[in-house]
């Protein structure tokens, strides 16, 4: 059984051949396919090859049909392993999922970051993500006081 293949080109010049059915999980790519402008391959100026590889891996896994049946529970477990990545890679994936308009990947990546940050104190957030505290001591005191209930 032959399936239509399309070529995706990363920003750093690498080409990836992907089944059309898998690739159109990205709404951006799906629109291009509809508009029939994929003959020479699709250049993805905003996505590096390192990230595109992960996106394609995700889309292949999520292309669920009779040939590739998989339960939701197994998918969730796979998601956890898939998202075991460096901080910067996760953020790049968020941007790629947004640019390529892949809702489920976008939700997964955003939720992963949300789970990373929830429950943390401001100090922990600043040190984990290298964010500078640009409040003056007085300003910080005032904001804390307004939100006192969250610190008790």
């Amino acid at each position, binding site marked *: 059984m032959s399936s239509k293949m399309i070529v995706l080109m990363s920003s750093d010049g690498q080409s990836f051949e992907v089944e059309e059915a898998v690739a159109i999980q990205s709404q951006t790519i799906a629109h291009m396919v509809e508009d029939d402008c994929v003959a020479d391959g699709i250049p993805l100026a905003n996505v590096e090859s390192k990230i595109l590889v992960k996106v394609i891996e995700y889309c292949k896994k999520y292309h669920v049909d009779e040939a590739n049946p998989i339960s939701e529970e197994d998918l969730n477990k796979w998601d956890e392993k898939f998202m075991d990545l460096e901080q910067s890679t996760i953020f790049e994936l*968020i941007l790629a999922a947004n640019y390529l308009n892949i809702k489920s990947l976008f939700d997964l990546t955003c939720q992963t970051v949300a789970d990373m940050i929830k429950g*943390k104190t401001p100090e922990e957030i600043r040190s984990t993500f290298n964010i*500078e505290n640009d409040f003056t001591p007085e300003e910080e005191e005032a904001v804390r006081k307004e939100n006192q209930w969250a610190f008790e």
Partner: protein
Amino acid sequence: MVRDIVDDPLDEDDIALVKTYGLVPYSAPIKKVEKEIKELTEKINDLCGIKESDTGLAPLSKQMMQEGQPLQVGYVSCFRYIPIDLLMDIFSRVPAKSIARFRCVSKLWESILCRPDFKELFMTMSSIRPPLLLFTFQDDDGNLFFFSSPHPQIPCNENTSLVPTRYHVQHTTDSFSEIGSPLCGFICRRGKRNLDTMVICNPVTGESVSLPKVELKSINTETRPYLGYDPVRKQLKVLCIKSDDIPNTCDEHQVLTLENGNHLWRTIQCKPHYPKSDGICIDGILYYTAGFDMRARVSMVVCFDVRSEKFSFINIHVFMLMNDSCTLINYKGKLGALQFTCLSPKRLRFWVLVNAEKNIWTKCIYALPPLWNNLVQHTELAIVGMTDGGEVVLSQYCLIYAFYIYYFNLESKSLTRVQIQDVEMFKRTRVYTSLGYVENFKLMTDYDRGFNTFSPQGRLF
């Protein structure tokens, strides 16, 4: 001739001469060239638009700067690569307590987390997530304490306990307020002594808005406020039902739309009736049980269409034996009702209104589960409602030593007891437990007058 240096101060020539001591032959030209290089570099940087503090930033941050975001000096952070609207999407997925803490991380985070469109998005996401349990305690000084918690994962083991989130404390002047069920994250309470005073409060923001006083015809007029939500116009309204102790006399009630600006009560007509239960809002219709007067039986379910502000009634036949402690619930989108039987052995009645036009109800009676005697014993329990998973949630009315809630699965007949921690200081205090609490950061000033007041901004997808 040697000058007498001690007596005469050095003049400028002398100073210039002294300054040349210790310098190498080309010092002056070198310094001049260094100065020129520095000036030229600054000129080049100005032309490129790069400032000193830019060192180390990635291109996307430059874009954010041009969009008017405050500049963060120094560190490179993954978060800085993400545009604001995507950041908001991430933040909308964390609980309110974390959001309140994150406002203290940096000025940029504070500004994002206080934006009206963020609050809107947060509200939308809050409403999509499973709703929370809300516990309200009042101490002897009239202060209100709000706690929320997600439901435990049922089935769970015996010793499961929940650690609730505690919100702002509300200070009231009237003790023993009548506290209604939450809707859209707001709670309406009425003073027990001042029946004409209604206050809308929000545990997350700590905001407390007093509504204008309700008109009382006589000193015996009773009032009962309800919150209702119109999903079409996205408006939250307060309905105030009045009743006199002389039955059948009070047919004028009041309704108010919650929004920014002046709150004004509008008068609406409805046949006299005496509200008995808490209200529940399903798809834009507010339901509550009522009778002809305080002592009469439950003879109707009142249906108030929040958008059209029109009343209709579902007749409750005497044989249904619906009483004052009947709890109305949302059963898979339909109106349901739960109540304990009066006579022994104690059992649970469950009604569902399957056909509203023809007033057809299904009725079931459930025996209490075997574990009831062990876990509950003689404690009086309030029926709080039903979860989406079909568990009946029961709660103590009053905290004695420890605070427990119970989950009764009607199908499997299982009973799970869950302890709520960190509330032991409220011994011998009345507790109001509700389902359907949604965290909401919006202040009353965030609601503009007119349409689209409670509407969520479009999400990215």
